[in-house]
């Protein structure tokens, strides 16, 4: 099969296009998604090809975007909304948490909410305040929502289509730092694995390292560096943040006895807390050390000139690996 080399941004664009071709009920909506193609150009060209009725530039109001998308979903559409930046999802928080998340339950399944809320998330792009947030834990704590994050172009292409095909609402987190960072070989004729599944992306035997979204690359690089020092890290890309696919995680930790969880979000009540609690509960006698967490500090996101210090990087991951090995 012939493959093409694509960036994450391009893969998402292709995935959205494919989903729109496959199902006329798929609509896109958001600020600047039309003519401009979104500030990150993820929807580039789609309004031109699918028209203003299917690629909808919205007024500047996030609650309005998600709230009207709820109505469109109730009418049988499958809205895919774009929140321009992570930090601007909060005006829509009420609609997401009280309406999107609860409609299926409230209606005893009569009113499914097949909606995708795309959010470019995470830091490292030198932006001003509110443009580098990692809000995933708040959504994962909310029953009724599913939360996923892609870490690479191939996943981006498939996962966005699978999220759109899902009858459950999906918060789709796109690591904006990766949009144009790397290219990967995409074979659009391949058969993707399931959406809500974690995946071992590097095998190893000493420490299990968990990551999703932008941290996957960092952890893979850390594993590479650690290998040079004779430490063998197993890296798992969680892909789905809620539900968590614990199978590969538990299997790995039972083997390694040691785990480090990483994310850009604040450590306090971040995914690391949940994973540490679950792993400890289920692998208690296999653990040689407590699960350690590497994340953003419990401070607001800093001014960008020091964001690389604030963000967990290769060294901080390796430091945790060392600590978990020395415990």
């Amino acid at each position, binding site marked *: 099969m012939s493959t093409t080399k694509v960036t994450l941004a391009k893969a998402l664009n292709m995935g959205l296009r494919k989903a729109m071709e496959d199902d006329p009920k798929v609509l896109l909506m958001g600020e600047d998604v039309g003519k401009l193609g979104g500030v990150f150009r993820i929807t580039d060209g789609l309004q031109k090809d699918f028209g203003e009725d299917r690629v909808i530039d919205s007024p500047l109001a996030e*609650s309005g975007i998600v*709230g009207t998308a709820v109505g469109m979903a109730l009418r049988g559409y499958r809205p895919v909304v774009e929140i321009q930046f992570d930090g601007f999802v909060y005006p829509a928080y009420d609609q997401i948490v009280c309406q999107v998340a609860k409609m299926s339950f409230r209606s*005893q399944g009569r009113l499914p909410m097949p909606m995708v809320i795309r959010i470019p998330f995470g830091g490292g792009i030198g932006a001003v305040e509110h443009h580098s947030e990692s809000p995933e834990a708040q959504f994962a704590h909310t029953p009724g929502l599913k939360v996923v994050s892609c870490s690479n172009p191939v996943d981006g292409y498939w996962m966005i289509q699978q999220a759109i095909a899902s009858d459950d609402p999906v918060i789709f987190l796109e690591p904006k730092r990766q949009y144009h960072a790397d290219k990967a070989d995409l074979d659009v004729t391949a058969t993707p694995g399931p959406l809500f599944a974690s995946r071992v992306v590097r095998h190893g035997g000493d420490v299990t390292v968990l990551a999703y979204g932008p941290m996957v690359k960092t952890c893979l690089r850390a594993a590479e560096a650690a290998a040079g020092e004779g430490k063998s890290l197993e890296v798992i890309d969680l892909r789905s943040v809620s539900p968590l696919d614990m199978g590969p995680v538990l299997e790995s930790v039972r083997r390694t006895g040691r785990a480090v969880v990483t994310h850009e979000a604040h450590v306090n009540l971040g995914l690391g807390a949940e994973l540490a609690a679950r792993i400890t509960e289920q692998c208690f006698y296999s653990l040689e050390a407590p699960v350690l967490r590497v994340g953003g500090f419990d401070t607001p996101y800093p001014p960008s000139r020091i964001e690389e210090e604030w963000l967990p990087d290769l060294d901080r991951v390796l430091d945790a690996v060392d600590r978990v090995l020395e415990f």
Partner: protein
Amino acid sequence: MADPDLIQLLTPEGERVEHPDYSFGEGLTAEEEADLVRGFYRDMVLTRRIDTEATALQRHGELGIWAQLLGQEAAQIGAGRALRPQDFVFPTYREHGVAWCRGIDPLQLLGLFRGVDHGGWDPRESNFHLYTIVIGAQTLHATGYAMGVQRDGLVGTDDPERDTAVLAHFGDGASSQGDVNESFIFAASYNAPVVFFCQNNQWAISEPIERQSRIPLYQRALGFGFPGMRVDGNDVLATYAVTKAALDHARTGQGPTFVEAYTYRMGAHTTTDDPTRYRLSDDVERWKLRDPIARVEAYLTRNGLADADFVDAIRAEADDLGAHLRAGCKALPDPAPLSVFDHVYADLPDELREQRDSYAAYLESFEGVGA
């Protein structure tokens, strides 16, 4: 009520009056018109009975709470009967009269207030959405739904059997929510076929309308670029006429409208509220003179359009309805504890399935103990 902006077709005394822009009964024979009014009367009486029964059921501990509509019957029946079958309604938590018009068994309304479900009817069957409790959230849903109707090509096709409008209910208090104002913006921006129907019952729990707006609410629409009008919400004929016109405006592709139904919450906010803490009984007494049912009854009887038999028959019907509610309410089954895991997702994730299974095992462990 010397409000020149107030659209009225039936006075509190039961006299028909003319309005330059709106009329009632156009195109109908006298008998058809009388039938319609008699139907309104019946709807209002039965709706009030639903309300009375539910209030009593709450007093007897059968409901956790009840949101009364006393005094708002005309606003709701006028709006509800103006709908065409294909139209879709987004209610608040107080639209029992509109639900009635949509053919929903009032017993189904009790489920939510009894705490056996969060809304038990099927919105796709009745074209009547579930009650929304978060103030104002549903106005955005209505607008989005209307945008969906547009995309379905069901606006302005000149086929009144197909062209579809959406009715969004909310209260005077709700008009202050960001969501409601955003829904005005989206509706105007896309010219969506939605009617914003605000029952200004003068109160948001303890807060008077003056806290939310210092000008008549219907004028809010003008700032967003679409028409607003104030109708006497205790006048079922005027409410019907104005809402029908607004729905037709929407379905023919002329865009959104704001209808302020000027009415009064005669009862408490809900059965847990105590309005004597914040309002004068004088006000309530004054509004009693404008009772929405009394004026229709006066009109019908004074004009020989209804006799005692008619009124008695409806009263009997109401008694039956009351009995149905009393018996039915207590018989509403409690949900099974394990049902909380149903429908959280269309596709139940493994981790939640495990949680359910271990809870089921936990519950079973007690059955062993009990045996």
